[in-house]
Structure formats: C-alpha cells, structure tokens
C-alpha cells in the first residue's frame, strides 16, 4: 500500500476511534469508580496512601490523574483525560506495530480498526480507571523496541524500558509483555556481530530490568513521604500481591462475566451499574454501562493465534512468533489463575488478539478474486454489530425502547437477584 494511502486510512480510523470515545462523554453519568479515582488520586498525592479504591494496584494512575486534576480541574478531562488519550493513541500504535510484525499494511489497519470499534475498548477509554493503560504502555514499549531493532540506537531501547516501567506501574501484568519482548529482542540481535557478549547483557539488563524497576519504584515516592524506608517497601508489595492474587471484588462476591476461559469462545460482557441523580431531591436514574464483546473481532482469536504460530514456525517469521508469544504469555496466566477475573483484565491481551485476528483476516482475503467483497462484508458485519453495542457501552441503553428491556433482563440474570428499587421493571 502506498504510504500516503496508509496514512489516510489510519487517520480516518483514529478519527473514528476519537469520535466513538468522546461522543456524549461529558454527559455520560459519572460512575462511582470515576469519582473514587479522583478521591484516590488526591489521597495518594496528598496523604501518601494507596486507595481507598484499587489500593492493590501500583499508583501511576493516581499520579497522572492528580496532575490532570490540578491542571484541568475535576471535569471530565481531569478524571478521564488519560484513559481517553491512551485509548485513542492505542489505535495508531496497533497499526504501526502491526506493520512491523505482520508485514502487512492491511492487517495493521484492520487491527487499529478493531480497537477503534471494540466496545470494551470504547467503554474503558471513557472511564477514569486505568485498564486502558494496560494496552497503551506495552504497545508503546514494543514499538520503541522495534525502532531499536531498526536503528540500533540504544535510546529507543531505553525508551522501551521506561515505557514498560510505566506499564508495570499501572498493573503488574505488563511484566508478561516485557518477558516476551525481551525474548524477541535477544533473538533478533543474536546476529549483531559488533555487539555481543557482555555489552549486550549489560545494555539489556540496564534498559529492560533496572530501568523499568526504577520507574516503578519512583511512582511510590508519595508513599515514601509517609516516613517509610526502602526496607519497608517489600512488605507493601507483598500485601499488594496477595490482594491481587486473591482479588474477587472489594466486599461483595463477584458477579457478572468473570471466567477468562470463555473470553474468546462466546461474547462476554463487562457491566457497571449504579444510581445517579442530577440534583438533590430529584429521582435517581439507574445506569448500566454494558460492554459486550464483538463476536466478529473476538471469536476468531484462538484460531488466529494458532494460525500465527503455524505460519510463523513454518516460515520462520520471528515477528509472527513474537506476536503469538505476546498473546500466550499475556493470556495464559489469566486463564490459569483459577479465580474469578473480570473482563477489564483482558486489556492485557486484546491488542495482541486483535493483531492476530487482523492477520488471519488479511490472509483470508488476500490473493482472492472476491477478496475485497469478503473484506467489505466482514467489516460491514463488524460495524453492524457495533451499532447496537455502542449505546450499551456508553450507558444509554436504558433510554432506547426494547433495548432497555433486554438490559434489565440481562441484569437480573447476571446478578442473580432482583433489580434495585427504582431500576425499572422487567415486563
């Protein structure tokens, strides 16, 4: 594809991603999580305490949200600006990485398109909590690592390490992407004759182990401000790890879709329900933010990864195997966790799933007489499914006739209890 055309298409997809993420954002009801993100950011920076919400995750979100609250106030951008920014920027990141690993502009654009219209990605780009960071920072790190391989400039490698550090400072699952990337880099540089042995080891050690650890440690500066010493830091990490490893919601038992084994076997959902009122004394409004995965994008994932592995091994294409490794190393620990895990954790996996599916689709439609028709049909179906799923993801589903009934039935089925008083009635 001509470079000019690639850029035009990519720009169009980024604009689509932006529009889907900002439309009606200012009027979207503020969830309790969004509110608590602000409270927790202030608590961390001004009191050095993790929490009160999601205390078991590292504090990068708190640092960023506090900065945006100070700069932009406690409006929608102050609370959600970072998720919005990272959610939008993940779109071109996927394309740029897809180009390099899949060696196909079409596959690259498809991956970006999937992210742009995926309702889980849209949902969490519009929330204050930091799950979208799990997609953005590792992808940024991987792109910078690719730039290092292309230019042999060590600053890119250092940038990659720093980006991984920021990712780990969002959630620890980024360690798996770091592991996969480290393996890929070691493989790719094995033939660099003028850079061997100790030089390679020291550079990788410093940039991909020490630098991420340094960035991660620095994000705990507010906590150290409470008088803690370095020797007390490991105990905090242990507490955070134990909470994370056994976490099944704070307080109430977990409900909703929470089996990662079925993420790519059937459409799954993430629901956030709450009451809100515009003014004191007015009637409460029941809100359901419901992200439903698009089967056109999610369900081909496992066959697509299988195809990646097969083709990558057969043709010795390291990029394909690297992508497969990213998916496997990111998904397997989640799938094997043996406990309930909510769908938002899938952001550690979805970028690589989307790249894999994009590659499969590109291979299917390429070199076929009716390839364009097939592609158009597939994209049309994907978009067609996105249309009804979009209002669900932005919390407007209950305002749409007939859709409201479906949502309320779904809520009753998934929560296993009657609807809250004032939520509406199942007819």
């Amino acid at each position: 594809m001509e470079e000019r055309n690639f850029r035009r298409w990519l720009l169009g997809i980024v604009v689509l991603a932006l529009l889907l993420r900002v439309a009606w954002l200012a009027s979207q009801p503020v969830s309790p999580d969004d509110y608590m993100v602000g409270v927790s950011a202030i608590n961390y920076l001004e009191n050095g305490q993790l929490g009160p919400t999601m205390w078991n995750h590292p504090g990068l979100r708190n640092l960023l949200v506090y900065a945006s609250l100070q700069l932009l106030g406690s409006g929608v951008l102050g609370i959600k600006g970072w998720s919005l920014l990272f959610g939008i920027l993940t779109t071109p990141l996927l394309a740029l990485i897809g180009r390099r690993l899949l060696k196909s502009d079409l596959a690259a654009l498809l991956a970006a398109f999937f992210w742009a219209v995926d309702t889980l990605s849209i949902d969490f780009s519009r929330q204050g909590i930091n799950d979208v960071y799990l997609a953005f920072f590792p992808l940024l790190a991987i792109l910078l690592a690719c730039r290092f391989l292309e230019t042999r400039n060590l600053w890119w490698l250092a940038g990659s390490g720093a980006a991984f550090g920021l990712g780990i400072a969002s959630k620890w699952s980024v360690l798996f992407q770091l592991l996969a990337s480290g393996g890929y880099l070691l493989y790719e540089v094995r033939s660099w004759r003028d850079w061997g042995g100790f030089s390679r080891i020291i550079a990788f050690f410093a940039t991909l182990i020490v630098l991420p650890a340094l960035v991660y440690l620095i994000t705990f500066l507010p906590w150290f401000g409470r008088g803690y010493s370095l020797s007390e830091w490991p105990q905090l990490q242990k507490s955070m790890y134990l909470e994370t490893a056994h976490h099944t919601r704070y307080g109430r038992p977990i409900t909703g879709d929470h089996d990662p084994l079925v993420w790519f076997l059937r459409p799954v959902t993430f629901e956030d329900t709450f009451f809100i009122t515009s003014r004191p004394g007015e009637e409460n409004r029941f809100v359901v933010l419901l992200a439903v995965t698009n089967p056109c994008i999610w369900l081909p994932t496992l066959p697509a990864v299988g195809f990646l592995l097969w083709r990558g091994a057969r043709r010795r294409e390291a990029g394909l195997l690297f992508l497969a490794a990213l998916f496997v190393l990111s998904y397997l620990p989640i799938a094997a966790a043996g406990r309930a895990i909510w769908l938002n954790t899938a952001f550690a996996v979805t970028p690589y799933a989307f790249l894999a599916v994009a590659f499969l689709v590109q291979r299917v439609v390429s070199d076929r007489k009716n390839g364009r028709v097939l592609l158009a049909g597939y994209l049309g179906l994907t978009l067609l499914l996105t249309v009804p799923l979009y209002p669900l993801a932005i919390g407007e589903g209950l305002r749409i006739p007939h859709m409201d009934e479906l949502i309320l039935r779904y809520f009753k089925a998934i929560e296993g209890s009657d609807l809250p008083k004032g939520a509406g009635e199942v007819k």
Partner: protein
Amino acid sequence: MQATPRGSLLIAVPILLAALCAAWGMDRYGKSQRSVRAAGPAVSGAVRRVVVPDPAEAFKLWRKEHQRGRTVLFFGRAWPKVQPDAFLEVPEVRNYPLPLSNYVTFLEERVLDRSTFLFLATETGIARRVVAVVSEPAFQAAQEANRTAKHQETVAEGLLVPYMGFPRIFTTLKGLSSPEEPVLVYVAADFFQGSSADELKRRLAEAGVLSDLIVLCEQAGDPEVSEGARRELARFAMLLGAGG
C-alpha cells in the same frame, strides 16, 4: 547512541547509577519525613508524658505536634475496631466539576471519636505502622478473625495483618519486643483491665522501648472502662516517675 560496546556502557552506567541513587534517595527521603524528637527509655521518667481524658485528644495532640511517619505502640484491651467502608460515601449527585476533596481531611473533621482515633492516625500519616499490645483474649480473637486474611503472617514483633498495605502488628505484653526506633507510646486505661502497672513498666524496661512521647488516656466517660483501670493508669504514671 549506537549498539556498540561503548554505547552499552554509556547507556547502562547512568541507568544503574540513577537506580542506586534513587533507591538510596527515596530511603533517605522517607526516613527524613519521620518526626522523631529526642528520645529515651520509655520507663526513664525523663520522657515527656501527657495525660488525656479521651482517645480523640490523643489524636489532636499528635496532630498539634505535627507527628508524622511514626510507629505507634498502642496498649489497650483490644484494637479499636472501625468500619472504614462506612465512612466512604460516594455522593449520588455527581455532576462535573466533581466535588472532590482530601478524603482524610474530610474524615478528620467528621468522624474523630474514641473508636476512630487510631484509624485516623494511620490515615493522616501520623502513624506509618502500629504495634498493638492487646489482652490475651483480644490477641486470640485477632488471630482467629484474621485466619483467612489475604495477608497475615507472624513476624518478630507479633502477628502482622496489614490493612490496605498499612502494617498493623498485634501482640501481647508477653510478646512485646523492642521496636527499632523511638515510638509514640499510647496507653489506654482499659489495658489495665487485664494487666498491672508494674507488669507494664517491667516489660517496657525489658524490651528496651524508646520513646519521645507517652500518652496516657483515661478514657473518661467510657462505660466499658472501670474506675479500677483508671486508678491503675494513674499508678502507672506515678511509677514512670517525673516526666510531664
């Protein structure tokens, strides 16, 4: 900077140095935030001692003195239980711009009382850790209640059960060991419903506890605290000697 042996050193050495400096610097910074004043053996009589009528007054005293980053050595019949979730209200009206504020300042103004003072000390940064010396039954109850806690372990000082990462250590008078730094000592009158003043003084001396401030709380008006316990608290103050 190209990937060459020289390039590797030029990139690696600064990173390694930065990491070492950061680790050392953050450790120093953390320790510098602790408000420790001239300390001595807790039983020496030379350590400043304040008697307060109510636990909330202890908190106010610590606040007034800008105590920060301390280990609080708490002596009481039991850990003062609170339900922190009950304090956390997400308002039903949530319009932009959101009415956000410092949650801890909010708590301090609204919920300070005899049961929340220690919780607030942890939240406000007065205490960075608490070692709670409680009665034997209360310690056993704490062991039982935390048997299934996600993080609980036996450490040198007792039973560690962090709350949201905040270190809380439970022990008994028999298990009291010497903290590695001068502590803020807080003795509640109800501690003497299971122990004697002589016993407490002896254990403090044996453990070599150092302090710069001892707060003795009469728990006035608390119907669960006996007058006998308050008298024993006063006797403990006399046993400590001059102080004040």
